């Protein structure tokens, strides 16, 4: 479970895939895109947030999202076996090469080439599953930061602008705001 904690108060946040919430809040964002979460938060002006994962909830990940079909499973087992076999052979060869000087270099090179081909096939078939991060340090991935692009949003720079005078006027006075705020607060629970 991926948890978003926002401590900054007073924001109403809309993140695609997550129900709208008002900050401060702690919400489950497992179903949301992490870059969309960061994008939405920054758009709301929130820069004080924390994204963590809860390890104890790791087992609740739905099976259908991670389980492979039987056919794929078989393929994966076969690949794994071949991989292990090659690894063992190379290990044996290197042990032998330390004790016996007559092992042909060609044999070692061939086995290494086999290993390389097999690795490529594994990668091409995308058998490597998506890494599920389970601790905070690993989620601090700078790549996520790079995905956020705000160049298209107009920059506000008033540092070199000066205002002379004030264009504001008083047009009225407040009444009953405390009473109404109490009533509204009670109504909204």
């Amino acid at each position, binding site marked *: 479970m991926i948890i978003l*904690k926002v*401590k*900054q*108060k*007073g*924001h*109403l946040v809309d993140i695609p895939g997550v129900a709208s919430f*008002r900050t*401060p809040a702690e919400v489950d964002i497992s179903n949301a895109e992490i870059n969309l979460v*960061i994008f939405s938060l*920054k*758009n*709301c*002006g929130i*820069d*004080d*947030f*924390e*994204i963590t994962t809860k390890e104890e909830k790791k087992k609740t990940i739905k099976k259908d999202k991670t389980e492979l079909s039987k056919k794929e499973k078989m393929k994966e087992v076969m690949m794994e076996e071949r991989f292990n076999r090659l690894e063992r052979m190379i290990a044996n060869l290197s042990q032998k090469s330390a004790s016996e000087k007559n092992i042909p270099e060609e044999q070692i090179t061939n086995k290494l080439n086999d290993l390389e081909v097999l690795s490529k096939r594994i990668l091409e078939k995308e058998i490597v599953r998506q890494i599920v991060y389970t601790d905070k340090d690993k989620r*601090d991935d700078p790549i996520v*930061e790079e995905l956020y692009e705000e160049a298209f*949003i*107009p920059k*506000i*720079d*008033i540092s*070199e*602008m*000066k*205002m*002379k*005078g*004030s*264009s*504001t*006027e*008083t*047009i*009225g*006075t*407040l*009444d*009953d*705001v*405390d*009473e*109404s*705020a*109490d*009533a*509204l*607060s009670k*109504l*909204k*629970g």
Partner: protein
Amino acid sequence: MMTEDKVEDVKAEQPKKKKDKNVVCVGLDCGTMHLVAARSDTNEVKVTRNVFLPVDKEEIDITNLASINYVEGPDNELFIIGSDAFEFANLFGQPVSRPMEKGLISAKEDAAIDVLTLMIQDLIGETKDKEVYCSYSIPAEPIDEERSVIYHERVFARILNNIGVNHTSVNEAMAIIYSECAKENFSGIAISFGAGMANCAISYKGIEAHRFSTARAGDWIDNMTAASSGMVANRVTNIKEKYMKLRGEVEVKARKTKRVLEGLFYHHEALIDYTIKKIIKEFEEKVDMEVDEKIPVVIAGGTSLPEGFVNLFKSSLEGYELPFDVSEVRRAKNPLTAVANGLLIRTMADVKKQ
């Protein structure tokens, strides 16, 4: 970007009372014609006209601007702001620049967002060493124009963030419900007749049942009248604000002004009729709720200011069969400050809940 809890830790060390003292709630009504702000630590509601007038710094002697409010930009730019901009523009018969158009941030004005930021900063007032929470108004999506309010909403969020204010967007018409319908337990129909849009919300016990806006409001009246009378729209606005009455005699002698007032009356009538038709249609098609009680209709916004506006609305309403029972049609206590007042109430209610 991950957090560090240092700031939170420092706050936690402070005594609770002191922390509460520094909390300020704000309601900011971001209207096309006016920006209005209400703060919890003062009884006054402030306004500024949401217009500016770019002038060439080299063509104008800055000493002539001694009593004028303006913003100086980095590239020799000079913008007269607020009511002064409006008066100057009328004097020279030229249109003012407006950061907003038809209720939303305008894409036409390059400098608009920076100038607007300064105007809002000035309007909200002192925020140093204070924890400021602000609800700012946004319109509902218009039903008669293909326009989105997302950009508008996000730009204001950015402006408020830039000046260090915590913010939440709230529908403009719902703000009127918060301001004016406490005695009806926040049930009612609120219509904000602004400059750029007419915003409507249907609320039942504080829950928004439906909201929508139409792109016809004060500017539409002014533009249509200006087109019919061959005048610049802000001159028509000026006449409207000075002389417009929707009942009784209008004490104007100049024939041209009389013609403009006549045009304004017809367009006010047409606007009210158009809005009522839209409310009925939206209620019938979109509101999936049985309202047994009679509910009030509350009218606010600058366009509802002319004397007789509410009576004209009432008499137009009588000509229709409504899908809801109306207890009364009334004008907000102060049509210009109702939205800011309601936004402040909402901010205070939210802060109380925390």
